[in-house]
C-alpha cells in the first residue's frame, strides 16, 4: 500500500504544485480583501476543497498513457489495494483542500471579522465542499474502471456535476422538511446528514469499484 500511495503522490504532485501556487495567491488576495460581501471567501473555500480532490482524481489518467496500470498488476499488490489507495489519496487531498479553506477563512475572519449571517454558515460551507468532493469521487472511480481511462475527461465532468447535484438534491430535500425555516440545531443536523450521506456513498463506492476493477483486463 505504501508504494501505491507514493505512486499516487508522484502522479498528482506536479498538477498539485501548480494548483497550490494559484490557491496561495488567490488566498492572499481573498484574505486581504474586505469580506463584507462574503462571496469571495465562499468561492475560495469551495474551490480549495473541490479543486484539490478534482486534481487528485483527474491525475489518474496520467498513468493510463503507458503500460504502468498493467505493470502494477504484476507487482505484489492486490487489485483491491490499488483501488483503496486511490480512494485514500483522494481523501488525503481533500484534507489538504479543507486545510487551505480553513486557513484562508480563519485569516480573513481574524483580519476583517465574521462575514456570514449565521454561525452555522461556515460549517455548511465545509459540508458542501467535502460532500461534493466525496460524491464526486464515489461516482468517478467506478465509472473510470467501467468505461476506461480514455474517457476520463467526460467521467470527470459527469462526476463533478453529480457531486454538485447530490448536494443540491439533499439540501432541497432537507429544506422541504422544514418549510418554516430551520433552527441552528436543525441546520447542523442537516449538515451532518449530508456529510453522512457523502461518506456512506464514498464508502460503498470503494467495494463497488474493487468489484469492477477485478474484472478489468489490460
Amino acid at each position, binding site marked *: 500500500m505504501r508504494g501505491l500511495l507514493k505512486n499516487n503522490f*508522484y502522479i498528482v504532485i*506536479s498538477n498539485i504544485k501548480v494548483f497550490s501556487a494559484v490557491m496561495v495567491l488567490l488566498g492572499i488576495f481573498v484574505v486581504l480583501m474586505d469580506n463584507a460581501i462574503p462571496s469571495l471567501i465562499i468561492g475560495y473555500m469551495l474551490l480549495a476543497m473541490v479543486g484539490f480532490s478534482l486534481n487528485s482524481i483527474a491525475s489518474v489518467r*496520467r498513468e493510463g498513457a503507458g*503500460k504502468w496500470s498493467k505493470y502494477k498488476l*504484476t507487482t505484489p499488490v492486490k487489485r483491491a489495494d490499488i483501488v483503496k489507495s486511490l480512494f485514500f489519496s483522494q481523501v488525503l487531498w481533500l484534507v489538504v483542500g479543507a486545510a487551505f479553506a480553513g486557513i484562508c477563512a480563519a485569516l480573513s475572519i481574524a483580519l476583517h471579522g465574521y462575514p456570514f449571517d449565521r454561525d452555522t454558515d461556515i460549517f455548511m460551507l465545509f459540508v458542501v465542499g467535502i460532500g461534493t468532493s466525496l460524491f464526486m469521487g464515489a461516482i468517478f472511480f467506478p465509472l473510470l474502471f467501467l468505461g476506461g481511462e480514455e474517457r476520463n475527461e467526460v467521467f470527470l465532468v459527469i462526476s463533478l456535476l453529480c457531486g454538485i447535484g447530490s448536494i443540491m438534491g439533499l439540501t432541497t430535500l432537507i429544506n422541504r422538511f422544514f418549510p418554516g425555516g430551520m433552527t441552528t440545531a436543525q441546520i447542523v443536523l442537516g449538515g451532518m446528514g449530508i456529510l453522512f450521506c457523502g461518506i456512506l456513498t464514498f464508502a460503498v463506492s470503494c467495494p463497488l469499484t474493487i468489484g469492477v476493477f477485478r474484472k478489468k483486463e*489490460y
Partner: protein
Amino acid sequence: MIVENILEVQQMSKTYRKSNFTLGQISFSLPYGAILGFVGENGAGKTTTIGCILNTVVKDSGTVKLFGREMLDSDTEIREKIGVVYDGDNFPDFFTAKQLSRVMKGLYKQWDDALFQKYLEDFHLPVKQKFKYYSKGMTMKLAIAAALSHHPQLLILDEATSGLDPVMRDEMLDVFLEFVQEEDHSILLSSHITGDLEKVADYITLIHDGRLIMTVSKNDLTYHYGVMRCRESQFLALDPGDILAYRKRDFQTDVLVSDKKEAERKYKGAVVDPVSIDEMMLLFVKGERV
C-alpha cells in the same frame, strides 16, 4: 513434493469476443534454470498468453501454475518472485529513476536499492532525468534494471529487446544469461527477434494464430530438425508422416523434418539443411501442414 517447472500452462484458453480472437488450449512448461523463447508473428497471442499467466487478462479456462501453484490476486508473495518487462513505456514518463525506486521499494519487500543504483550506473541511465527524456533503448534498460532489482526468480519479458540496437541487445542477453546461472532462475522471453532466442533460449515455443504449434528444445532444433529442399517429384514421394510443415516456392518445396539424419538416410540424395527459428516459424506460419 519436488516442483520441476517454475511455470506450467495447461489447456489455457481465452476468447476476445469483439475481435473474435481465440487463444486456444495453450500448454507448455518452463523448467527451473532455463530460458524459454516464446515466438510467433505479431498478433499470434504471445501478449495474451503472458497476460493470462500474470492475471492482467482473465483466462476462460485452463490452469497456470507458477512455482507449483495457481496464482490468485491475493498471492502477492508469488509476484514478489516475478520480474516483468513489457515493450514500450513500463513506467510513467514523468517519473525519475529516484522516484521509481521509492515507489518500487514500497511495492516489493525485497527491493534492493543498491542493486538498482548499480544497474542504473552500469546501463548509463541518468537518475534525475524524467523518463520522457530517455530514448527507447534507455527505457527498456530501465525496465530490465527494475525487473531485476527485487531479486526475482522468474523473469517474464514481453518483447523486451525489441527497441534495442544490436549492441544493447547483446548486452541485455548477457544479463539474461547471467541471471539464469542460478539454477532456480528462469526466463520466459517473448520475442519476434529470433536471433536473440537462438543465442540464449533453451526451449522454443511457437505460437501461431492463437494456437500452440510446438515446443522444442533448442538442441533438438539445432541438431535434429532440418529443412529438406525438394523438387516436385521428390516432394510427392515423401512419406506424409515425415513432414512437419512444408512451403512451396518457385522451383522447390521446403519441408521441415524432425530428424534430418533419418531423412538423409531415407531419402537418398535429398538436401537437408539445418533449420533456423526464423525458417521454422515461416514454414509453420506461411507454409502448410499435412
